[in-house]
């Protein structure tokens, strides 16, 4: 290869690289500067202290973590631990409910076409696109001792006082979260179920498999990927939800996001908040690992 050719190649390579940097640069900068760097700061601040003028004093102490886990009455007897465990349970219950409710609907959607498909799709998607705060707010007047559900029950001769489960509390939070996140599960399940070749199901039926066997041995394994992705996309936001318990727990209990927000807002304890947030980052990282393992990027579009 002649020198001129080599030079030309080098220029072309450099041109390509410049073009690539031009295309990807801003996006990479955004992701680094607004996701990775702040997360790194968060980790650093979780080991730092805040002085009386609310500035970060860089240091290395685990006192923020001690504040999270060691209470006055002993280890793990803190509002943070209580809220974290409760948030985990609420997120798990929400995820379970969305799976149970979304699977049959997603399957039905794959079997529908034309007008019926459009109508069902429209009916399940409108609540999804209605902004989150409105969806949660819409349960506000249904629950509570004077809410619609309890008023309706009290109007019947069967009940003489408000039913506890329809008061503000855990049930109200789980039900409204299920309502809000159901479409995430539905859409991920639908897209993985839709990819199943219906011929496989027909073939197993022809070979004598019962409906239950087909569901257990064919449909569920083939849609496992969508199921896992769906669980991640419900569990993680449910875990970190703030508005939902603010509206529907009415002070009966606090979820983790509320504990962190209150500390930061009232005491400007961003170091405590940072340490606490890391316990939300861990589930996020697990979720991220699961999604990267099970889903190709193209399938997420």
């Amino acid at each position, binding site marked *: 290869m002649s020198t001129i050719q080599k030079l030309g190649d080098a220029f072309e390579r450099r041109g390509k690289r410049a073009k690539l940097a031009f*295309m*990807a640069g*801003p*996006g990479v900068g*955004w*992701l680094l500067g*607004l*996701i990775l*760097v*702040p*997360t790194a*700061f968060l980790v650093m601040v979780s080991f730092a202290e805040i002085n009386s003028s609310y500035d*970060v004093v860089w240091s290395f102490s685990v006192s923020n973590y001690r504040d999270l886990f060691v209470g006055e009455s002993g280890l793990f007897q803190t509002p943070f631990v209580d809220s974290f465990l409760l948030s985990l349970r609420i997120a798990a219950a929400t995820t379970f409910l969305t799976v149970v409710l979304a699977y*049959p609907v997603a399957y*039905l959607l794959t079997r529908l076409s034309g007008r019926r498909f459009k109508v*069902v*799709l429209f*009916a399940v*998607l*409108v609540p999804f*696109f*209605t*902004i989150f*705060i*409105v969806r949660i*707010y*819409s349960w506000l007047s*249904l629950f509570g001792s*004077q809410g*619609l559900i309890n*008023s*309706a029950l009290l*109007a019947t001769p069967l009940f003489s006082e408000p039913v506890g489960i329809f008061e503000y509390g855990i049930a109200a939070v789980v039900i409204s979260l299920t*309502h809000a996140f*159901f479409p995430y599960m539905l859409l991920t399940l639908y897209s993985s179920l839709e990819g199943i070749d219906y011929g496989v199901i*027909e073939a197993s*039926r022809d070979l*004598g498999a*019962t*409906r239950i066997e087909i569901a257990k041995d064919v449909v569920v394994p083939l849609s496992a990927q969508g199921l896992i992705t769906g669980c991640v*996309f419900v569990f*993680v*936001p449910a875990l970190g939800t*703030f*508005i939902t318990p*603010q*509206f529907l727990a009415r002070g009966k209990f606090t979820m983790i*996001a509320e504990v962190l*927000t209150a500390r*930061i807002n009232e005491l400007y304890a961003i170091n405590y908040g*940072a340490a606490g*947030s890391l316990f*939300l*980052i861990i589930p*996020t990282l697990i979720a991220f690992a699961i*999604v990267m393992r099970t889903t190709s*990027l*193209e399938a*997420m*579009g």
Partner: protein
Amino acid sequence: MADSEGHSRLSRLVGEPGLTGTVSVDRVVSAIASYGMWALTLGIIVFLWLPLSQIIALSFMENSAVLFPFEGVTLQNYVSLFTNEGLLLAARQSAFVATVSASVATLIGVPLGFAIARHTFRGRGMLRGLVIVPLLMPGIIMGISLLILFRVIGISPGFFGTVLAHSVYGLPFIVLPVTARLAVFDGKLEEGARDLGADGRSVLKDVTLPIISPAIAAGFVFAWLRSFEDFIRVFFVGGTMDALTKEMYGMVVYSQGTEAMDPMATIIVLVVSAALAVAINFRDILEYV
């Protein structure tokens, strides 16, 4: 049911004794499963719509807090919405933030999508992963971490910080559909255009962009909606800036009267329904969600 008929035809053909029994049981199970699935689906549609339809009903009632006791029909709630300057201003402000943020996300995200889909470079796999992080990261983490970063580097909370936060939040909604679209569409179309003498720019303008523009448009809508409906990020990095969600939150939590909430919610539901009805009739929108 056609498939289970196929099954019984097959078993008759094979003539396997005893199989007909299982077929009829299977048919019953099949019918139950099918009706059950419809019943469940209708039940879920009722579940999804019950709270929203109740809000719509309440928005026209004198008793705007709860359906019973019924006190009469009125448009007073709409009057209190349209005379609530603070709420309307907040709604406009949120729409403005959403428009700027989604535009920034689009300008940055489309080239990034092209780079990921069309080029091979070191760190590409990692970049693909990084793109979905804003989607998975709980809002409170993004809020707190950006609050700390902005404080350390001296960006005061407000419009600019919110746009930064929302534009990175919206980025996956642009990048993912664009890479997905570029991955499936036939590269031969571009090749053909080049063979017919089109230069790079006109291939991009006349072939590639028209094919991926629906994906970009859908991504823009999602990025916009996510910004518009966000509470927790704007709560941390928005400072004293107005936002619709902050205003609504204040109304509910500090009991500043919710008469204006129901009509606002109703208008949002109606706008969304209309937009979605049009979108569903025009294309296969599931490609983009």
